[in-house]
């Protein structure tokens, strides 16, 4: 690892931190993309989609018949799980992928469905789920797979403020995978969640404490992190750490049960904690540390 000039790092990091949020907003969407998305809305009759009641959330730990879920992955509220047949060997490949997002509003959830549909390269629209005999969500579409007469590649739908996509990992390997049954179970789980009162947004997890001590250390130091989070449903939230540079490091839960940021490279660190609550809503908080040359 290089021994960087601290002063330069500090200047650069300050610039980087100052520009991060602005730059994220500034990712320019091309006119071609905007036109394509607009056409997608029209193609799928977005304006006429029925509107369901928003829900408080969707449990991360879904019990899906015949399947077990792999480790949860979460990125800015999009929760992804790989689904394995229950009882399959440890090294067996996943059969399906379940993506869900509990959005604040119905409109936000629909935007993700539009994004999924706009991502299809084929000029032929995907059929509604009803065309294959599935009554799922407020609005739902499917992708037929060429692996078999009834094989499906994916099912994407919105119920209320929850967007869901279930995809088959390899329809050729598993042409009989019942994607419809999986999607139906997820849809039913959403339906069982409490409906939100008009005007209320789903509760997000709370990061009550996020502190590092000390906040200025020499590279190589393990910094103890104090974290306390509250889950809106009283469950176990999912924690995702993002170590923003130019300083380097990683967060690890030690065998003693203590969370530590192990610093490995000098420079400012913007340490972000992204917490996804047990019902799929999420929040993020960030603290700054300064890592000096060793």
């Amino acid at each position: 690892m290089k021994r960087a000039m601290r002063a330069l790092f500090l200047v650069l990091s300050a610039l980087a931190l100052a520009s991060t949020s602005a730059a994220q907003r500034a990712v320019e969407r091309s006119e071609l993309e905007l036109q394509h998305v607009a056409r997608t809305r029209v193609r799928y009759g977005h304006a006429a989609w029925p509107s369901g009641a928003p829900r408080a959330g969707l449990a991360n730990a879904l019990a899906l018949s015949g399947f077990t879920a792999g480790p949860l992955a979460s990125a800015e509220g999009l929760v992804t799980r790989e689904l394995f047949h229950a009882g399959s060997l440890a090294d067996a490949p996943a059969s399906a992928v379940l993506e869900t997002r509990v959005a604040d509003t119905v409109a936000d959830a629909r935007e993700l469905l539009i994004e999924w549909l706009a991502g299809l390269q084929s000029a032929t629209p995907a059929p509604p789920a009803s065309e294959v005999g599935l009554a799922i969500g407020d609005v739902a579409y499917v992708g037929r797979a060429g692996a078999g007469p009834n094989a499906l590649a994916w099912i994407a739908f919105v119920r209320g403020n929850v967007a869901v996509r279930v995809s088959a990992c390899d329809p050729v390997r598993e042409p009989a995978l019942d994607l419809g049954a999986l999607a139906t179970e997820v849809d039913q789980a959403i339906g069982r969640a409490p409906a939100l009162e008009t005007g209320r947004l789903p509760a997000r997890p709370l990061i009550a404490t996020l502190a590092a001590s000390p906040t200025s250390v020499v590279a190589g130091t393990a910094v103890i992190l104090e974290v306390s989070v509250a889950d809106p449903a009283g469950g176990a939230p999912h924690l995702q750490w993002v170590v923003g540079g130019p300083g380097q490091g990683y967060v690890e839960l030690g065998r003693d049960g203590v969370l530590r940021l192990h610093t490995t490279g000098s420079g400012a660190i913007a340490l972000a904690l992204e917490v996804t609550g047990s019902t799929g809503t999420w929040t993020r908080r960030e603290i700054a540390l300064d890592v000096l040359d060793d």
Partner: protein
Amino acid sequence: MTSNLAALRAAPALVILCAFSAAQSRQAQPSPVRLVLDEASRIADPKLEGGEALLAFHVMPQGAKLPVRVEVCAGDTTVRKLWSGSIAGGVTPQRLLWDGRDDEDERCPTGAYVVRVTGPGLPALELPLDLVRLGVTEIEAQDSASGADDEFQMVYFRKVAAYEHYATPAIHEYVNVARAGEVSDLDLDDGSARPVVTVHTDTATPVLDGSEYAVDTYNYPLAYVKGARPRLELTFGASATGPGSATMGAGYPVPGYEIRVACDGADAVAGEELAVPGGTARIDLFALAGDVGREERVLTVRWQARRTGTDAWSDIPGAQVIPLRFYTLLGAPRFRMDASGTQYAGPWVEVAEYVVTWKAALGLDTSDQAGLTEVFVKGFFGQNGGLPHAIEGVVYDAYPLGGDGGATHYFSFGAWRANLSRLLNGHALGRFINCTDNMGATTTMLSMLGAENMRPVRLGNMSLRALWGIGAPGYTLNLWGSGGHAFSYHHIVTDDGAVTVSDTCMQLDEDGNPLALPCTPGWNVHRPWAGPGGYNDLAANNTVSKHVETLPGLQ
């Protein structure tokens, strides 16, 4: 001759005590029969590879015959009867090695010893010898002496079942020190030298100690810009294991002497070459290869000593041999402007390794961006040369291939981010990919290897001509199996503002008749966008709109 006589060898002589041996020779001159010292180690670390202490002497004059005894003493105590026997006079030296063990075959502790050579009626040769414990316990890669920003941490993206990104989880890329409860950094508890650590060759998971990142034993690959001279900071071990598994010091500095490193294939940094226990020295390796790829080096660390105040450095016997792996890049890794997170620390090991595989299979040159792009397009697509299938075995998401209508699975439009880690993890989110998945992977992978100005190009609707999609068995004029041979949009890549474009998603038909099968494969490597034989011409029946977009982020 004693049975435990140290082995003779033909290794180069290492004379540290030139002045001393000359004086001894002069003392012996008056005698008609005398011992003449040829060479003797003044400082030695027998735990190094080839590090036994050397003694060489002969008897003069020719024709004389003399019983001689050679012993190693610590103070007044003889710790090792090294050799005894009769020597015939002549200039051929008797060469002896001491492995640092006593007569009980136990390793002697570091410290001062005397090698005593005696014969009846002769003044003894008494040669001071210091046993030390030399060794590098940590290596930190740094930017080269040129001042360029040319050294980068490599990134792994998976930790057992969990899904995490992180750069090489350490300050030093090579660490080989005492584990919890062990006696010393340089040795194992039985006194033997701690074995060097082999290169970590897994391309995804880092070195783990149970469920945690290993912190005391690892040897991670290093990443430098091609042609760089890696600067390495070596840390010398300070603790060794003595008799009875007790901790002991490294036995140096030796009073009156200085020790420095002098590695094979490297120059020591002037003024930073002296070795002290627990201290550091820096070296500049000879230049790495001038192309993108992987290079295996062996760092042979040697030590030299000199009497303080003199200029003559002499080799200390032996060396420590440490394997190192280097990945070379086209330039500094490039990421999206607002990139943040450990995955942006440097090139991903798995991505760099893909180039190595593809380059070897295709026999192509990666010394410039054009060559690297060609390797990437052809390697990513696969199905040619020694590459039987596309990257990670993916297949274009078309109905006739078992998929659907070209859905995106490894790219988030909202976050404008490629989910590369999942794609490289055995296509964890599914076997089928589309053009945007390809674009996201190609732009980010090339950029992290130093390719400049890689950008996505979004294309408008396309009435397609013959194409061969990634992972497909061949060309088609009916991509979706329904007769609708068209794209609602398409994603490709460029590094020159779309004057030329590259595409890992499909091959076009170059036989002059792209509306009929069979076809002549045409790779899209820096293919001109416009004109006859250009991308638009070969790919579509219509004039296609295009827009150069922002480099995606990574996940």
